Every structure is written in structure tokens, then in C-alpha cells.
């Protein structure tokens, strides 16, 4: 079980959170066309390594937060509020 440091609430169990996925994708502008929206909805990288993800503190503060998580070790490098830019570690 992950232990996730919610930037609003502090360290909490994974069961309080809901996972969404890649936090680097951005909803395209309204006039971007079908291909751009198709990519936004369906196409995802599946990186082996560090990944910036959306997690929803559903059983807590109800905030969407960013979590930098390693997809093979499950290590969590950092967490941040929704509006912060997150960099992934190099290794």
C-alpha cells in the first residue's frame, strides 16, 4: 500500500485516494480538433520509471494532487498541489 503525502492533509494511506493517471496531459483548446482530443482521452505513455500522476484525495480533502511515483518500485518521490509543475528525477 502506498503512503501518499497529500500537500493539504499530510501523509495518508493509499485507500483514501483514487488514481486517475498521467498528470502531464492537458485538455486541448476547444478548437484543437478531433485528433487532439482523441490523443487527450485515449493515448498515454506507459513509462517504466518515474511518472507524474493525478491522484484524487477522495476520502479526504477532495483535492486533486500530483504524485511523482516510480512505476516499477512504487517509490514516491514527491507530491504537489494541482497547479504546481513537477519534474521527474533523472533516474
Amino acid at each position, binding site marked *: 500500500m*502506498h*503512503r501518499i503525502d497529500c500537500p493539504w492533509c499530510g501523509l495518508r494511506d493509499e485507500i483514501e485516494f483514487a488514481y486517475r493517471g498521467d*498528470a502531464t496531459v492537458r485538455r486541448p483548446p*476547444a478548437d484543437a480538433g478531433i485528433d487532439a482530443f482523441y490523443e487527450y482521452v485515449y493515448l498515454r505513455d506507459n513509462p517504466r520509471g518515474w511518472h507524474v500522476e*493525478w491522484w484524487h484525495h477522495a476520502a479526504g480533502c477532495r483535492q486533486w494532487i500530483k504524485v511523482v511515483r516510480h512505476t516499477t518500485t512504487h517509490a514516491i518521490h514527491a507530491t504537489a498541489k*494541482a*497547479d504546481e509543475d513537477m519534474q521527474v528525477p533523472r533516474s
Partner: protein
Amino acid sequence: MSRRLAGGGRVDRGARLRFSFDGDAYEGLRGDTLASALMANGVRLVGRSFKYHRPRGIVTAGPEEPNALVELRGGARREANTPMPVIELFDGLEARSQNRWPSLAFDLLSANDLIARFLPAGFYYKTFMWPASFWEKVYEPLIRRSAGLGSAARAPDPDRYETLHAHCDVLVVGSGATGLAAARAAAEAGARVILCEQDFELGGGLLLDPAHEAWRAGMIGALLRQSEATVLSRTSVFGYYDGNVLGAIERVADHLPVPPDHAPRQRFWMIRAREVVLATGALERLIALPDNDRPGVMLAGAALAYLRRFAVAPGERAVMFTNNDEAYDTAFALHDAGIEVAAIVDVRAATARAEPARQRGIDLRLGSVVLGVHGRRGVRGVTVAARDGANAKTLSADLLCVSGGHNPAIQLASQSRTAMRWDSAIAGFVPGESTQRQRSAGAARGLTGIASCARDGAAAGAAAAADAGFAAASGFDLPPDSAEPGTQVEAFWEVRSAGKAFVDLQNDVTADDIRLARREGYEHIEHAKRYTTLSMATDQGKTGGLVGAAVLAAARGEDVAAVGLPTYRPFAVPISFGAIAGHAVGKDFAPIRRTALHRWHERRGARFMEVGPWLRPAYYPQPGEENDAWASVLREARAVRQAVGLCDVSTLGKIDVQGRDAAVFLDRLYTNTFSTLPVGRARYGLMLREDGIVFDDGTTSRLADDHFFMTTTTVNAARVLEHMEYHAQTVWPDLDVQFCAVTDHWASMSLAGPQARATLAKAVEGLDLDNAAFPFMGVGDAAIAGCPVRIFRISFSGELAYEVATPAGHAERVWEAVLAAGRAHGIAPYGVEALGLLRIEKGHVAGPELTGHTTARDLGLERMLKKRGDYVGRVLAERPALADPDRPRLVGLRPVDRRARLRAGGHLVAAPGSAESLGWLASAMPSVELDCWVGLGLLARAESWRGKCLFVAFPLNDETTEVEVTHPHHVDPENARVRA
């Protein structure tokens, strides 16, 4: 025949406990396990093996036991596959052997042993392949009858289980010399410590040597005096998870006949530890040799445990077979206790223990092996020979002690993703670098000897505490250093000779099976494991897993270090489902939501149904209707169509939306426009997912310029809120909008029917209900029975209707007042069944049509897609496949034979028997207005079918019903009634 020794051991000779095994009565002592008590009674044959039904005895003295598994207790408390060495004896204990028929001594299926060459590894995969039709009727029942060990209880578990969430700075697993020292060092440094020990006594290997008793007692006493140390015995740590979270089961009452009142049987600990010290010790491994599974073949350390801890003679005449020095301790202890040691058979050419062996007059055979075991239901003798097979000689013996060396117990370290490293000094794998905040200490990382383990434990405990931020000085005496030369093990795995040489006793896997797997291409350890089932039993191959890997390595011509072990996964020891479930069983499995009017519905005798987590009234039976649900449902629906009805709709999701940009936000969430909605009006809204599929619908009202009140469907309420939060917080964080769920804050009720206005007018104060003053889709505040209410003129049934919302605490008072006002008009409360009937008649879509596959156009709602402005789902809804005019589209369906019934779920076909599905019937109900069943369906090329007939096919019931395709609005298609 008692094998109990006259003195010594940790059993209480004054506390005699009665128990039964396979119906025979025995006596044991307090401090015994079932294994030691049976051994003390001279019982050797305790079970039959899984595949070959071979006679089996007790092999170990711990949870790693592969053979001696029993059904413990009876009735609802029957527990299958319980290892005897972990069953703490209690008075009245009942146990039965497993996997035998008709009796343990005479088992018919032991014929499997004779036809074993037809039951090779991968037998199931090869044999039960074809014909496919045999699987269900022949193969599966056959496998189920002959395979498997014990059987689970059939009755519900009568006991309670608890879940406990714990936090600590340092968790220590294991309470041997290493664990006690680690826990004490960490606690004295100031850390909050939890120490878990699976046994009922603390001490691990310390329990086997009276010389260490004073130190053990002193350490436990010191630990118990630490206020921040929690010491748990009878507690098995079974899993090491991400984030340094570990799971443990505390067997609170398993050592009692039944749990005391108010006590759980077991407690599930979920422990979040800053640092973990794994002091899990080491597990002795077997040596594969022909018939090494006969009752009386035992691991050397187990023989020592039965002798020293339980004061039981494990045999009368023993042979020791070893590849290391440590086993000599057992041989000497047996000898010193007066048990004849017929020989020590050592594969090595030399040992430092030769001299003390000779001093005792023991026949020491260096460079020798045990070639085979005699005796079927118990060891009668062994054949020993030189390693090359020369000079074979049979020795009479009833006990063969085997020691193939020791494996550090790396199960938990492996689960924590620690890679393992081969250590040739112990011929075993030891933990490599930790990836979590964890360290192994003592025998768990390959050390030997009490003193060096204690020293290592103290250092690990202090280091763990320091890493957790606690570094107070600590100091205590360690056991004196003795000359501990180490175990001097020689890697030796198998004696190759004719006969079954087992590497996995519980799953009946032999060394030949491993070689067969390799010949058939299963070379990788993970493949060989699955093909042969090596290490896949409940003991996870703790005694023979590495031996199997070594046999595979030899067959591959490689080093065992290169072959490796399969990955260990939870559970390191078997745990019960009851403990995992904890309190979450029966009515407590999931929370139940009840509306503010629930008690009123109960008093009225409502029949309830589950809608998501909610309990809602399905209908309210009246006298005479008890056995006829349809009578109630149709009566309630007729009341709405002909007079007036009242329905509790509090379960609809309600979200209060405020902020300067609230209207803009709703415009982007819904396909239609809310910024143009006047204050004091409501509007039906349709919401898509970003992929263009319909998500949810509901009415939203504008209470002020910057204040809206949204409703969602009952089942989607939580998902809609999450959807809104995602978009507000991450997609459009610049919008000034705030919202929160208020579903539980408001009770709401729908008053519907031609007499709705007359009824409400009698009850309401402060609102003019005249059609001009308060038209369809009007919203206004008022009071009923002195309670504040908000009234929405909206309709789901298609009748003139008002939805009355009131703060939840006033619910019953307002509900009663409306009912009283409607009495003269024939008002009836109606439930979800009538509500569903009315909406199907009216052609309003709901859950059965909003399937997650339907578009706005499919549902006939394309007029709600605004032409200008961005909203979620707008772009992808335009994808060609979703805009295809041939897609199934909402239609009404009525049977041609007006007496025929419709069944939701049926396929729409052009002709009876046609296999081409044109769509489906989504919802159906008998109409109270049309005097026939009516349905809503989705039909491909719907326009071309309008007014024509086709068929609803329900092949499961062999039903085909001819239906007419109609407009979806079976009632009042002009929508005049809602505006009346």
C-alpha cells in the same frame, strides 16, 4: 507408549490437556503443540500426501511444516490445512487428518503412488485436455474429489475478527536472540517499537537451550518495562507491502476452545513502520533422497525442538544425515538425552565435530550419504553408503534426522523487493541491498550462533532507531561469545538413487519432476515452479524450494545462484479469510444509506430495494396486496396518473454550485446552456464524458446570479462530483467556482398527478402556485407546516408535478403535511417501481438507457447539444462512428398482442429466429394508461421501423414477442400535462 521425557522442556507436567485426533482420545500438557503432543503419544502417521496419498509424519516444529496438516475443530469452526506445529494445545481440542479415505492407515487412493509414473509433473495440463465437453462433467469433479487437502467449514463463521491500524518507529519481526536485541536496542534509543513473534512463546531458538534462559527472561522483562514497546506473541507477519506497510495476524483466541465473550478470534494488524528489522531467523532445508517423506524423517532442528522444548523423544534410534556442523548439536542432544544415535552420516570428508562424536561413541560416517529409507508407514531403517554408493549397509532406525543446511527466512525481505544474493558460506540466498526502509539481521541474513546474532540484532535495532530519529544511548549485556566456528556447510542437495526423492512434500513434487519439467522446456525457475507446483503449496516451499532450484540448476548444468528462487509474494504464512474481512461482513460489508424519510417508509410497511448504496421504498403494500407486488405498483402508478402521488426522491445527487463563474462552469460541463437560465428557473441538463458518450442528466436551478443547485442521478452522484472537481481544479483552475455535495442535507419529495397543485396549495405558505405565477420549470422558496421548503416545478412522471425539498431534519413533518393535504384528493405514496413505470410510459431515459455506450443522439436528445461554446465531450461526440445515423436509437415498443408481456434485455430482431440483432429492449413495464406493456428500446435505423413491427427475442426463456415500434413517449407526447 509415552515418549515424554521425565524432565526438562517448557511443558507444564501438572496441566494435563485432553484432545482427540481422528476420534481417538489423547492427553498432552500445557505448552505442547498438537504436533508435540501427538509425538509424545507415539503417533507418527498424521496425514496423507496431496497427490500420491503417501503416509506422512511430522517434519518440522514450525509454520514451515509441509506434511502434518489437519482439520482443526469442527462444525462452523472447522479450519482446514492447519499445520500441527503451530496449533497450541488446549483442553478439548479436536483434529482430524486429511486427504485419506476411508481411514488414515488404509487409504484407497494411495494406489496413486503405484501408478505414479502415469501422474508426472504437468499431469493435469496433459491429461485433462480433451474432449472439452468432459471438463465440467468428468474431469473437474474427479479432480475435486481426489485433489485438495482438508475441507472448509460450510456454515458461517461464528467468530468475530478485528482490524487494527498501528504506527511505529521500528517494527521488529521475530523474537529470537536477534529480534529481542533489536527491539530492546531500538526501544532504549527512544523509538516506538512493535515486536511480532509468531510463536506463543518469545525467544525463537533461545527456547531450545536452557543455558540461554536467564538472558532471554532478562531481555523480555526489560522490553516489557519499556512503555513505548508493544510486544505481540502469536502474531505472524504475513506481508510486506509498499510504503513500509506490513500486515500481521494476531491469533488472539486460537489457543482457546472458543473466543471469550467480547474478544475477537484474530486481530488483523496493519502496521505502518518507519523502519523495519527482519529478525525472521533461518529455516532448515531437507535433502532430496529416495523416500525422504516417510513418517520418522524429520529436520534436525525440529528433532532438537521436540527434545528440548517439548521434552519429547522424537524416536528411539536415530540416524543423522547432514552436510553441516550445526546438525551435530541435535545428534549430541539426542545422545545426551539417552536416545540411541545409530550413526551420523555426513556428506563431507571432514568436520571439526568428529572428535566429540567419537567421544560419545557415535558411528560417524564421513563422505557418506543415506541412499534410501525403509518402512512405509514409518521409518524402520535406512541404507547408508559412501558417496559413490560403495559399502552400502542398512541400519535399523525409527528416526532419520536430515539437515541440508539453513536458508535465511527471506520471504518478507523478498516481498519488500529486496534482491537476493548468493552466499556460498551458507550455500543459500541472503538479502541484498534494501529498497524499502528495512534491514535483515541475524540468521535472517546468514549469521549463525546465538551471540553473533544477538550482537547483530542490537546493532540493527540501534541503527533502525537512529534512522527513525532516535539515538538515546542504550546498553545491555549480550550472551557470552562462544567459539562459534560457523556451520561449515557443503552445498549438497540430492542423493540420486531409485525411488521418489521429494523436494516439495506438500505438493508431492520430486526431483525427477523437476528434471522432467526442464526436459519439456520449462527451464526458467518461474516456469518450472508452475509446471511442477514446486513451492506453490501453503508452506511456499520453505523447506525444499531451494533444493528444487538446485536440482533444476544441476539439470541445466548451471550454478544454483544463477537459477535463483521464484519471487516470494504474500502470504508468507496462510491466514484466514475471516481475518482479512474483519468487521466487513454481512450487513456491515458496505455502508447502507437511508433517506431522512426511511423510518416513515418502514412504519408504512414499504418493501425496500437497493439502489447503489441506498435503500429505497420499492412499493408500499396495502392490506390484501401482501402477495401481489404488481397490485401495489400498479395502484401507486394509477394514483399518479389519475389523482396524485408522493415519492421520496432524496437519493438524487445534489450539488450546490456558487461563484462568479458558476454559470460558465456549468456551460462547460453540460451540453446545453445554463448562463442564459433566469434566476428562479430550472433546466434539464445533459452531461457527456470527454469521449462523447452520455454521462449523466438532471435538473439544475438558478437560485441567484452566482448560485446554482444541481441534481444528478442517484447512482452517478459521486462520479459527477469527482468529474466536476477534476475539471474545476485541473482543467479550468482559473474559474471562480466552488461547490459541495448537499445530497444528505436536503430531503426531497416529488408530488405528481393532476391533483398535485390542489394538494400543494393546501399545504404551502408563501408561494403562489397559479400556473402563470409559478409555471413549469419554476423554482421558489416557501414554507410547509412551518418548515422552510424549496419548490421546483419539474416532472419525471410526465404529470403535473412539484419537487419539494426541505432541510433533512424537517423531512417527516413536511411529508406528513403534504400527505394530509392530499388525502381528500386520493393521494398515495409511491415507490421506485411505480416511479420507473411512469418514466418508461413517459419515455424519459434513465439507467437502463444511459449505459455508458449511448450518445445524446442515440437517446433522442441531440437538440440538447449546443452549437456554440466548449463543453466536455463536444469534440469527440462528433466522431463519425458516434454520429452514424444507423446507430441504435431510442424507440417505444408495444406488444402487438396486447396481453403479451415484455422482458427487458431481449434482442430486437426482424423475424423470429433471426440471429441478427437490430438492437435491444432496455426497459419495460405494464402501462397503467394504455392497458398493455410498454417498453423503451434502442433500435438500429429506427426511423425506417417507425410504425412497423418486429420481434423481441429472449432466447434464454425461449420467448419471442411481436412488437410495434412507436414514439418513445407512450403518454402525453405533446408534454401538455406538465404545463397544465
